[in-house]
C-alpha cells in the first residue's frame, strides 16, 4: 500500500498532499492573492511559496497521521508552470527525498489534474476538457498516451477571465474567476456586443455574462468535436475554470444531447492541489517510474 507525498506550486497555489491507494489522506493548500487590478508575478509568488511550504508539509503529515517512514515516494510538479515557483517547490521535494531516502518523481501538472479527476469521479476513459489560468486543452487517451486534440492558440480561458477581472479591478479573493461567476449570475440581459451603457451609468454584469456564454460555448464546441472523433461517451472537466457551474451546465447539455456522461470535481480538486500530484505520482510509482536527482530539473513548458 504505497503512500505518496505530492508537492504542487506551479502557479499561485501551493499545496502538499498525501495519497495512499486511491485515498486522499491530506490536501492542505494556500493561495497567493494579489490586490484587485494586479496579477501574480513569478518572484513574489515564489517568495509566498517558500514562506509556507515547510508548514504545509507538516500539516499534511499531521492530517494524514503519517511520519516520514510511512511515505514511499516524493512526487512534485516538474512542469509546466512558472519558473521561480516551480523551482521553490522542487528544491524542497529534492531535499525531503534525500533526507528521508525516498525515490523522487517529477510529475506533469496537467496529468496530475487528469489523474485526480479520474480518481475522484470514477470516469474510465473520458474526453478531458482541461481549463485553467494556464492551460486550455481537450485531451483524450489514445494508444497508451494522453494526446491533445484541441487547445487554445494563444492564451488560456482562465487567463482571459483573469485579465478581464484585472481591468475591472474585480477582487482576486478567493480567485478572480470565482468573483466573475458570482457577478455573472446576477446578469439579466445577455448582450451581443460587450458594450452596456445605461444613461450616465454602466453595467458590467451583462458583459461578464457575455464573456462566459461566448468563451464557454467555444470550449463546449471543441470538446464535442473531440468526443465525436473518439466516439467517446464520457467527458471530464479538470482545472480551476472547471469549478464554474455555468460551464458545467453547458457541458452537461451537450453531453445529454449525445447520450454521454459528464464528470466534474469540486473546488478541492479542480483547483491546483498537492494531492493530485501525489495521485499522479502514485500511478507512476506503481508503474516503476523514478526521477533521478540529476534529471529532476523543472521545465516551464
Amino acid at each position, binding site marked *: 500500500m504505497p503512500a505518496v507525498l505530492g508537492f504542487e506550486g506551479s502557479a499561485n497555489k501551493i499545496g502538499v498532499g498525501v495519497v495512499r491507494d486511491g485515498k486522499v489522506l491530506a490536501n492542505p493548500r494556500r493561495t497567493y492573492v494579489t490586490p484587485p487590478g494586479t496579477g501574480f508575478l513569478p518572484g513574489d509568488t515564489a517568495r509566498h511559496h517558500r514562506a509556507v511550504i*515547510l508548514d504545509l508539509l507538516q500539516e499534511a503529515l499531521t492530517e494524514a497521521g503519517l511520519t516520514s517512514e510511512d511515505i514511499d515516494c516524493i512526487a512534485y510538479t516538474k512542469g509546466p508552470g512558472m519558473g521561480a515557483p516551480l523551482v521553490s517547490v522542487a528544491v524542497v521535494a*529534492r531535499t525531503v527525498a534525500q533526507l528521508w531516502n525516498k525515490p523522487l518523481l517529477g510529475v506533469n501538472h496537467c496529468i496530475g489534474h487528469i489523474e485526480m479527476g479520474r480518481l475522484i469521479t470514477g470516469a474510465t476513459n473520458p474526453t478531458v476538457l482541461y481549463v485553467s489560468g494556464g492551460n486550455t486543452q481537450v485531451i483524450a487517451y489514445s494508444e497508451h498516451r494522453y494526446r491533445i486534440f484541441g487547445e487554445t492558440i494563444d492564451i488560456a480561458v482562465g487567463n482571459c477571465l483573469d485579465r478581464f477581472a484585472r481591468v475591472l479591478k474585480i477582487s482576486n479573493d478567493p480567485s478572480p474567476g470565482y468573483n466573475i461567476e458570482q457577478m455573472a449570475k446576477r446578469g439579466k440581459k445577455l448582450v451581443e456586443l460587450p458594450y452596456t451603457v445605461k444613461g450616465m451609468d454602466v453595467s458590467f454584469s451583462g458583459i461578464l455574462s457575455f464573456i462566459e456564454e461566448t468563451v464557454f460555448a467555444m470550449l463546449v464546441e471543441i470538446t464535442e468535436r473531440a468526443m465525436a472523433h473518439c466516439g467517446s461517451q464520457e467527458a471530464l472537466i479538470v482545472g480551476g475554470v472547471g469549478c464554474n457551474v455555468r460551464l458545467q451546465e453547458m457541458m452537461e447539455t451537450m453531453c445529454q444531447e449525445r447520450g454521454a456522461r459528464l464528470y466534474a470535481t469540486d473546488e478541492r480538486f479542480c483547483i491546483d492541489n498537492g494531492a493530485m500530484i501525489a495521485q499522479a505520482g502514485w500511478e507512476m510509482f506503481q508503474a516503476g517510474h523514478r526521477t533521478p*536527482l540529476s534529471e529532476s530539473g523543472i521545465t516551464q513548458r
Partner: protein
Amino acid sequence: MQASGGGAGGAEGRDDQRSSRTPACQSGSGSAEGEDVHQAPEGRGVFGRGRAVMEAAVARPQGERAPDGLGSAGDVAPLAVRPRRGEVVLTLRVPFQSALEADMARRSLLPDAQRHQGLIRKEFAVNGSDLLVRWTAEELAFIRLSLNPFLDQLSLVIRNIRSLGIPPRQSLS
C-alpha cells in the same frame, strides 16, 4: 552562512534565522597586478552563526583550459573552463555542519542551475563541509540577478534540512 542541522532526530529550540550574525564578505585576492577586485558589501546575517565568504574578481585570461569538472574535497575547486578576458567570477562558500549536508544542498540546487546558462555559468562543488558555488558572466549585473534568487532557494534548503533534521545513519541514494 552556517547551516545547523537538527542533529539525530532533534530539532533546534531557538530560531536561528532571527539571530543577527553579520556575514563577512571578503574580496578575492587576485594573482596578478591590474586586477580589479570588488568587495561585496557587508549585510545583516539571516542564516545564524558563521559567515559566508564571497570573492569576486575579474579574472585574467589564461592560456590553457583547466581539466573538466570541479575539484573534489581537498582541492580549491578549479573552474571547469577558464573565464575569458573581462569576465567576472563570483565565488560563494557556504559552510555546513557536514559534507553530507553540503552535498545534499548541492544535489537539491544543481538541477535547476542550468536554466539560464546562456548569460551566466553556475558551477557547484563540495569542498570538505563547504558548498561552493561559482558564477561566471560577462557582467556583474547578470551575476547579481542570479545571486539574489539563489540565496532565497539556498535559505529554503537550509531551513528544510534544519526543520526535518538529518536522520542517523543517513546514506546518500
